[in-house]
């Protein structure tokens, strides 16, 4: 399931999926602008059929945060 998340992040950020890991985020990726950040959250909502809260949307510093928020909505990404 992590692959689905990584692939989507890679697609939105326009980087190879192999470069994505749980520590990837705006700090470590030049492509991760605030604009692409909200496009990512929006596309994640569609892909995983969830609706993040405003607090969750604002609290994304790295992929691990997204995983944590997805878990809040019952999406467990087991590798």
């Amino acid at each position, binding site marked *: 399931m992590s692959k689905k998340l990584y692939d989507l992040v890679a697609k939105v950020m326009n980087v190879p999926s192999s470069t994505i890991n749980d520590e990837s985020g705006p700090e470590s990726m030049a492509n991760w602008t605030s604009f692409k950040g909200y496009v990512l959250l*929006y596309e994640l909502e569609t892909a995983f059929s969830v609706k993040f809260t405003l607090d969750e949307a604002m609290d994304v510093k790295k992929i691990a945060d997204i995983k944590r928020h997805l878990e809040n909505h019952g999406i467990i990404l087991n590798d």
Partner: protein
Amino acid sequence: MPYQNMLIEQKLSDYINKASDLAGKTFEKKVRVAILCSFTINGIEDAIRVKAADKNIDCTVYAGGYNQHNQEILNQDSDLYKFSPHISFLMMDTRNVLGEIFHFPYSISESERKSFIEKKIKEIEDLINIFTSRTKSKLVIANFNIPTYSSYGLFETKTEYGFHKMIEDLNHRLASSFANSGSVYVYDFNSFVSQYGENNVFDYKLFFFGDIKVSPDYIPYLANDFMSYIIGYLGITKKCIVLDLDNTLWGGIIGEDEFSGIKLGPEPPGNAYVEFQKVLLALHQRGIILAINSKNNYDDALKVIKEHPYMILREEHFASLKINWNDKVSNIKEIANELNIGLDSMVFIDDDPINREFMKLSLPEILTVDPSPDPSQYTNIIKKMNEFSALNITSEDTQRGKMYSEQRKRSELEHTVTDIESFLKQLELKVFIKSANEFTIPRISQLTLKTNQFNLTTKRYQESDIQKFSNDDKYFVGCAQVLDKFGDNGITGVFVVRKDNSKEWFLDTFLMSCRVMGREVEKGLLGHIINKAKESGVERIKAQFIPTQKNKPIENFLPACGFKKDGDYWIYSLDSKLTIPNYLVVRVE
């Protein structure tokens, strides 16, 4: 074009990624577009660039700063003006414009609400007038979304000049103010939100997160609507829809199901085909040419077209009927020849994937449309197409269907007479020369934008350009209306002459619509220019032929009229004698 792509857009991130691959690619046409917005609308520039590239247009986009539209328009040294856009889109959100009144419309009285809207429309008009006085750019201003919510709830519709009425009035006033403008267009953003749904387009979380008022999934749809203006501006509007018959205009196969067995009528699925035909007829009534390209027995198919009680499109609505067993590529080439239009101005609709594939491979310049396997979607698909967008619809456009029907009758006459001169004599051709004025300028501009074949220089002029020429003593601008015994062809010829000095005029633009090519009408129009030049004491007329891939038909026009080659130019000495065919009646109005 796969039907799925026409109904369901790709994700915004797909457009952003594709846009990053456009660098270094070259395209046939170029356009500069500015986007000014009072809220965050990132990504639209990428979607527009990708959609433009799909139509072979290099679109450079200037995205104004967030909520900087006022400053950019008011400051004449702003980057907006330095960018010199051809088209500018201005989106101001209802919340921004109404301010606190957006939430508290009933904190003020009805008369205060009216005064408030009066003040707002004046502010917007002033802003637009400043913009149009400083740039030649077309301006497309989005109107205002009317939110579904009102604090008055059910009582909203019973309230005099209530919240919703205020915004409706603002929209109405905005449209009225610029209805007659050739440079300002109002985009119906309110309808856009209705079409896709307020709850989809507007996402509160994104709004609070970053003042985003159009959700990412809907940005490509908005870009599609904006593309309509770019298509209209560049004059690359499609002119003709070529249709298959079986399972396209009716359900079933006439050769197998026979007259009474085809699906066409008030019951499903026949009603889907009736609806599709109605949409096509409406397009025909605004100037889109219809033609048939079908593998069938001619008599079987024509019987349906002429006699079926639920057929909406009849013989007179088609400019050409290719119903035979020839291959569809040969047929469509013949249709293009008959109608004198370029293949790139044609759309081909056929339910059969093999026919479509054959067309796409053989003639990629034709837009081949997959109407989807489901006839209930045919109408939706045609309505989603922005290829028929035009910034102006002239009276010639609305008459085009009738004109092509008359053209078919001309062709029939042509086949009954043995030589071309007898044919032209029998046509009883009349050429009425008109000057550029408020009635003719939209059509003159349209012809310069659309005419490719019999066009000496292929210079494209917007209405504002023609207006400027017509107000300038250094220019002589006119057009020709062509009539014959079968009807009125409308304004089909245009000239723009630049008076370089007292002895020499320059033929900047000279064109004839393909509709009247081959009748020597052009000599009547040129004769008028020559007469005017003589009256003004001019000694010579200088002209230039700028070859393009499409204007071969006019290649020999200048030497045939007595122009002599002089370097890159052609010179007509006023001592020469141009013979105007005696079957032409030329009248100057």
